[in-house]
């Protein structure tokens, strides 16, 4: 009985947590007439009515999506800009981050502790703290207002190294020793032992990175003065009752890649989150 009561509470809570996303989805399928009616209180001086968005549109329509996908070229440019930044960032995080995490996890070298502590500290720093440092070097390299100004600093983020480090340190010594006895060199151990066994960690780090990069706000705003280079995360249509439909639809389209990556990687992500918490 008590367990059922708790279950009901948990389900209600899940509903509350998901409610904002549900009304966004529902709103994106509403006709402009329906949205205008629902969102009327946004602009006029009504004080007796409030915004209300039902969870099921009365007359569902795809018009908002058609509008965004066919009549808004700037939306595509921004979507493409996002892809052009996210893919290289993640590639760089793999190329630089995976070996680094492996090195920190399984090798001894001078200053290792100090270096790893620095990595953790850097991981904690909000962008604003390193903003000026970033600017100074990007300016010197003449990269301001290019996508590389976003890609390079983010590609060397230390957060994925931290996540993958946890996984790699879990690989038992015996496995590595066995590979070495079979004549595997350092590179081969890395290629044939570390990467396959640590793949859950690598994937979970990449899911977290994707969610992070897909949402870059401050970096492009600071380092890209040319708005035609901005990513989708900065596509912020104003919402008035007239434009709300396309605003909702565009935000759903922006949400889809994130949700897809999230669902595809959820098991790994959970393992990744867990591994960062529990270490025997």
């Amino acid at each position, binding site marked *: 009985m008590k367990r059922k009561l708790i279950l009901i509470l948990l389900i209600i809570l899940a509903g509350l947590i998901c409610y904002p996303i549900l009304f966004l989805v529902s709103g994106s399928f509403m006709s402009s007439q329906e949205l205008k009616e629902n969102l009327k209180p*946004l602009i006029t001086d009504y004080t007796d009515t409030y915004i209300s968005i039902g969870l099921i549109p009365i007359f569902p329509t795809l018009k908002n999506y058609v509008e965004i996908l066919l009549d808004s070229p700037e939306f595509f440019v921004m979507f493409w800009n996002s892809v052009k930044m996210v893919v290289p960032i993640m590639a760089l995080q793999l190329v*630089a981050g995976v070996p680094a995490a492996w090195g920190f996890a399984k*090798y001894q070298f001078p200053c290792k502790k100090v270096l790893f502590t620095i990595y*953790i500290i850097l991981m*904690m720093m909000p962008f604003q703290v390193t903003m000026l*440092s970033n600017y100074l070097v990007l300016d010197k390299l003449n990269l301001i207002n290019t996508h590389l100004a976003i890609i390079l600093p983010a590609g060397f983020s230390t957060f994925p190294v931290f996540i993958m480090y946890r996984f790699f340190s879990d690989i038992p010594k015996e496995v590595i020793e066995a590979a070495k006895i079979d004549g595997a060199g350092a590179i081969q151990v890395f290629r044939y032992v570390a990467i396959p066994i640590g793949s859950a960690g690598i994937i979970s780090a990449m899911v977290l990175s994707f969610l992070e990069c897909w949402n870059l706000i401050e970096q492009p705003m600071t380092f890209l003065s040319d708005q035609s280079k901005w990513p989708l995360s900065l596509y912020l249509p104003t*919402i008035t009752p007239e434009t709300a439909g396309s605003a909702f639809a565009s935000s759903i389209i922006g949400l889809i890649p994130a949700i897809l990556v999230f669902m595809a990687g959820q098991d790994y992500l959970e393992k990744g989150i867990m591994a960062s*918490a529990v270490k025997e």
Partner: protein
Amino acid sequence: MIKKMKSSRFTGILFVLPSLAGVAIFILVPFLDVIKRSFTSVMAGEWVGFSNYQAIFTNGAFQMAAKNTFRFLIICMPILLGLSLAISVCLDKQTKFGQLLKSAYLVPMAVPVASVVIIWRVLFHKQGILSGLMGMLGITAIDWMNSKYAFWVLVFSYVWKNVGYNIVLWMAGLSAIPGSIYEAAKVDGASEWQIFYKITLPNLGKVSYTIAILSLLNSFKVFREAYLVAGNYPHDSMYLIQHLFNNWYRELSLDKLSAAAVIVALVITVIVLRLSNVFYGEEKG
């Protein structure tokens, strides 16, 4: 044998080197320049000692932003940690729907900031959904984002986004506690609260440090929502240290910006070092 050890030391550095080079070029080395700038004047570049530091500590905006950021951390971290722990303890005992519920709690993590902003506008507008709910209780409409409640909107936003992530973290910690301890306690006739206080909590000690660090890391990210919803100068109650940095950057107050960056970096270093025994305690093994 000694030769082998040396070569293995060398390989370790080689693995780390590409990443380290990038980190050094893009953050560490320029940060040294920032430290230097924090002791010089912005125009002439003359040595000015600690006067930039003096300037920021007597600066009203800095005091307000630091106070707000600190207040935000002090309030939202216990709420998030407590709430997610409570939920995960309940969820841990649910066999049915457990996985599904966990997924539902995790969804907000994937919602892009731009979508969050639209949601906030509709929820927290003066005539928005929240005001509507309050209206049913007979409370007059409040412009949530432009009042002292703005701060609480930020707290809510943070908890909403991170609760799922923390639930998964806590549940990982819970699953590591051996079931036999619980059985023994039950046999001894311990009540559920006693079990929670005497067994669950003490066994979560180590995990909770890591969760605290990750929650702190994520707490700095609420700035994105705050910024996109309310711009450079939001309501005073949610003016964070990040707003101030941003504004100094735009105004080219690089002397103050450098000094403040050094201060914040120092504060974070102190926090991380205080917790580092946890990180290193785990590393041995």
